[in-house]
């Protein structure tokens, strides 16, 4: 039986989206949730014959936006216990620059998203601003603060190591 072309397309996009969402969140579970949400929206659009011209780009925008939205919705939550971070050790096995990966986890979601969209996706500030629903000036300031914070984190970890 021939598979639904939309489902086939969604299936082919799943892996790159999962990696993108993982870079964005640093968390496998959250990445899976975001990809799930974006693909569901994509399939719904396809049922209404409103498929975007560039599906991958559309899905990445949805994921970036949802990531920030989730942050907005849940930032007042106070966790009673830290979530299980066991995944980190698994994924770190495949990442050489573990210091930088850890430093990224200290950034706010928006700051991290800006860095991922700029350095991994190579988007310009206007594209990032559209995806995150903010101004280009905000994108620039978030990127600048994120880089500054990363540098501080890396300096601190280097000082720890040297001492």
């Amino acid at each position: 039986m021939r598979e639904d072309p939309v489902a086939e397309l969604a299936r082919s996009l799943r892996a790159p989206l999962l990696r993108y969402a993982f870079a964005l969140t640093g968390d496998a579970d959250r990445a899976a949730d975001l990809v799930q949400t974006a693909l569901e929206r994509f399939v719904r659009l396809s049922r209404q014959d409103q498929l975007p011209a560039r599906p991958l780009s559309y899905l990445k925008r949805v994921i970036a936006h949802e990531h920030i939205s989730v942050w907005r919705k849940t930032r007042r939550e106070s966790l009673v216990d830290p979530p299980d971070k066991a995944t980190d050790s698994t994924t770190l096995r495949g990442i050489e620059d573990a210091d930088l990966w850890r430093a990224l986890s200290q950034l706010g979601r928006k700051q991290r998203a800006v860095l991922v969209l700029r350095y991994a996706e190579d988007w310009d500030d206007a594209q990032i601003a559209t995806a995150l629903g903010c101004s280009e000036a905000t994108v620039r300031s978030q990127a600048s603060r994120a880089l500054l914070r990363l540098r501080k984190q890396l300096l601190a970890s280097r000082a720890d190591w040297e001492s």
Partner: protein
Amino acid sequence: MKDPLQQDHLQDRLVALFDQVYRLDERMITSKPGSAKPVSRFTWRSVAASTAATALVVCALPVLLTQFASGGASGRGPGDTATPTTASADAAELQLHDFYDKGATTATYGQGSLFLATNTADSCVVTRIPVAHRVVRARRVLPAAACVGMAYASGGALVLVAPPAAGAAPPKYQVIRLRSESLAVTATADLPPTVQQTISIGRSSVWLAAGNRVLSLDSSSLRRNGDVRIKGMTVTAVSPDAFGFWAVGDSSSGPLTNQVARIDAQGHLIFQRQLQGTVSAPTVVALPGNRALVGLQSSSRDARRVVINGTGDMAEIRADAARILLWNGNGGYAAGLNGLLEAIDNSGRTTATAITSGVINALTGVGRRAFVITPSRVAVTG
């Protein structure tokens, strides 16, 4: 030599890092330590079909079947303390400590206190015990014949569902909201008489199952803000999460089969599928990562757990206990008949077991800690 922390070099490092992440094997991202057979996360055929409002998704899903236990804790009555056999025989022993010398019908935990509800012949008594002091700080006799479910909602509220009092006309189920400190009643709401069996608290909603309907009430005002109908299914348990909720139940017509459904926050059915097995009243608990753990148990000889992901893929797990499930954020427990308690990991597999004296009425807790409520006492895991 260039300072590795200089701006342009840091940017190069970021590009290289993301490049590496983008080349990671998908399994490196999705697999969890300790889960030998990870559930595959997505099967797009099922989602595509479900969004077209297909009632039942029937497609070739990778079902990871494991033969479940053929033995079990059979022939034991409440209060017996036999050692469990089968799958958990090699699991570690789970330590249980006495917490309170009276039992309860149901319980919930919130803001450092354990709340117990005890049904008597003509009333329901709610008790608050701060966990740090282990002394009863508040007690309230409710004007309800019984409490069938209780949950702690955000904002310092305790929400209970009470069935209609005997002889009441018209028969009304009520949702009662209490102030968690004093246990004073702050609001009540009448529900259709068919509402029964289950209550669950989401981020800001109370979820109630009623036949094939799942009602959602705002937890502060108790106003109805959602009413979802799931065709062909009598819902026996719901478990909300950030995405929406999971519902499990029995087929409402034909031979008895179990079903699971995934509903998003807007009330759309994402998928509904049949579970293998014919047991009554399955239970469900949402797990992190858009997954849920479904417990299937009709007797101590027939217990299974199924981990199912957001698109309907499922893995069946050999288990001893599945009647009551609890997930505490980073740890879980399953309770079965005859007081069998199992600590479970993120994939639903047993890591340790214990037997309580008496049947387990309810489980609640925080973190890895669980309070185990039996009719005669409350114990806490070590």
